[in-house]
């Protein structure tokens, strides 16, 4: 519906602008705060325009970290978060693609039972099963390791379920044509199913990367060694520095840095995502 009513246009623009201001304002304040020396923030008025400490603050944070909060450079934390988020996203996608392929295209005993067992785990997010999971990880000696950070979060059903639904929409004749063309199951998976799932994979990657990046409770539990801290839990520790006021300007700089990778992933993958949506095929 295209309507040409001027006041409607004005109102809808106002609503959009208001929405943007509400969303962007905190980020702007965060950014501004990250460019000032600590005194400017502590004197009670919040500055509205960037200060001159941009390079100093970010260099401190990236290189040295905050002494009171353990002194781990944010660079290390960012790297830890990245490893965790990537392992979770890639691991989840790989496992669920294969699991969904097995469930949809192979007729093995207890196939539906397998599906339902996977499905039921949907109801058990990390937070619910956190104690037993922690016990298992601790017993396996995986505390303070990348495996301990990511492996327990990889096992979940959402992606398997989504890929199963997608595979069910792929026409059966495609698999039959491939069989006649001499493609075995693995070749069919690699040459036909995977390329067709490209857009789904991209969308899921975005979601899962952010899911992994934003993990808070689990890293807090399994890491005691500072060199394995992730950035999201790191920020929290900075605000609770012992016996001194939080160094807000550095916290804000860290926050800005922590926001960056998810934004990059969304922007980069969005292109692929939209491209896939435009070329509707199947």
């Amino acid at each position, binding site marked *: 519906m295209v309507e040409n009513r001027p006041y409607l246009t004005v109102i809808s623009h106002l609503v959009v602008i208001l929405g943007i201001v509400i969303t962007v304002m905190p980020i702007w304040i965060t950014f501004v705060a990250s460019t000032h020396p600590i005194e400017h923030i502590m004197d009670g008025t919040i500055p509205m325009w960037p200060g001159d400490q941009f390079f100093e603050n970010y260099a401190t944070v990236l290189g040295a970290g905050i002494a009171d909060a353990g002194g781990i450079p944010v660079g290390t934390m960012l790297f830890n978060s990245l490893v965790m988020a990537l392992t979770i996203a890639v691991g989840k996608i790989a496992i669920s693609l294969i699991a969904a392929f097995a469930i949809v295209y192979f007729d093995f005993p207890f196939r539906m039972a397998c599906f339902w067992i996977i499905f039921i785990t949907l109801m058990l997010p990390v937070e619910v099963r956190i104690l037993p999971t922690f016990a298992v990880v601790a017993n396996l000696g995986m505390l303070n390791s990348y495996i301990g950070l990511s492996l327990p979060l990889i096992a979940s059903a959402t992606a398997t379920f989504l890929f199963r639904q997608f595979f069910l929409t792929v026409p059966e*004749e*495609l698999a*039959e*044509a*491939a069989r*006649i*063309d*001499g493609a075995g199951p693995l070749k069919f998976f690699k040459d036909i199913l995977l390329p067709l799932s490209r857009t789904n994979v991209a969308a899921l990657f975005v979601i899962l990367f952010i899911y992994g990046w934003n993990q808070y409770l689990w890293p807090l539990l399994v890491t005691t060694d500072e060199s394995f801290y992730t950035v999201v839990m790191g920020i929290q520790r900075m605000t609770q520095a012992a016996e001194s006021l939080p160094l807000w300007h550095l916290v804000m700089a860290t926050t800005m840095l922590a926001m960056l990778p998810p934004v990059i992933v969304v922007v980069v993958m969005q292109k692929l995502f939209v491209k896939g949506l435009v*070329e509707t*095929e199947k």
Partner: protein
Amino acid sequence: MAELHLKGVQKIYQNGFHAIHGIDLDVADGEFIVLVGPSGCGKSTLLRMVAGLETISDGLVEIGGRPVNRLEPADRDIAMVFQNYALYPHMKVYDNMAYGLRNRGTPKDEIDRRVREAAGILELEPLLDRRPNQLSGGQRQRVAMGRAIVREPSVFLFDEPLSNLDAKLRVQMRVEIKRLQRRLAITSLYVTHDQVEAMTMADRLVVMNGGRAEQIGTPIELYDRPATTFVATFIGSPSMNLLEGTVAEGGTSVALVSGSSIGLPDPRPELAGRSVTLGVRPEHLTPTTDGSGMTLRLDLIEQLGADTLLHGHLDGDERRLVTVRLTGHFAPGQDAVQVAATNAVHLFDPQAGSRL
């Protein structure tokens, strides 16, 4: 180049449904066989068993003298064209055609030669770099054909390949497929439920009904001497008229329940006194002007331009609908005509439906 033999082929689906009840068929090298029949009679099932996409519950399928029951589809030396074409959506036309050859390890230049040759035959050269979603329905159909041709198979299998096209394109592609098949001389099995397609394309037809082959023969054989009432009504459009009657003394005519009688061109004294189903095609009933023949009370007149269809019932028999096909126009305004049967009449057993 190969013969295809089916011997007592049966299909029982996993749920216990008996879809094919033993079919025997010998297809000569280069022959074009069309499987026709109503929906659900097992045409696709039979074709898919030959392709290797369905297991064969009983019987034997031989391609080129080699039993293929246990072979994978890729090893049977067949190519199949699907109803929805089943082109790989993410591959270009070229790759769609080349994929099967690549999987078989055919050398690159050989693949290229074959794909270009097929593209030449099917006029697909300008489209080789497109994806399936950038093609029209007819072009997709051609690509599906191309994918089958490049494999240079022993047997072509088609499952209603034209049913997704509009009427005009269907006629055009029908001619094209037939011409192509002649030229390549590849043994073909073709499934359709369009009987015009069946009649025009087939060297021989297999009319299927409920998982059985009712009759196998050339289109003209089936038209002229249908073996059962099912074949009689299935082949030919509009369908053959079936009328109840009794063969008269001496076997020279059949007395119909309507009271009138139809003469038999070849006297059948051995059937005298027997009740029969008499079949006569709409085009073999002609109006008479001399007052002889049967009175047909008209219910509906369909003017097709070249032909006219008269629908009605015979005076004295309200139950059976009778259709007459006339060449040319028909002056409206009459509510009854006199019609007589020309020489082509068929006699069937009223219970078994088999030809007498």
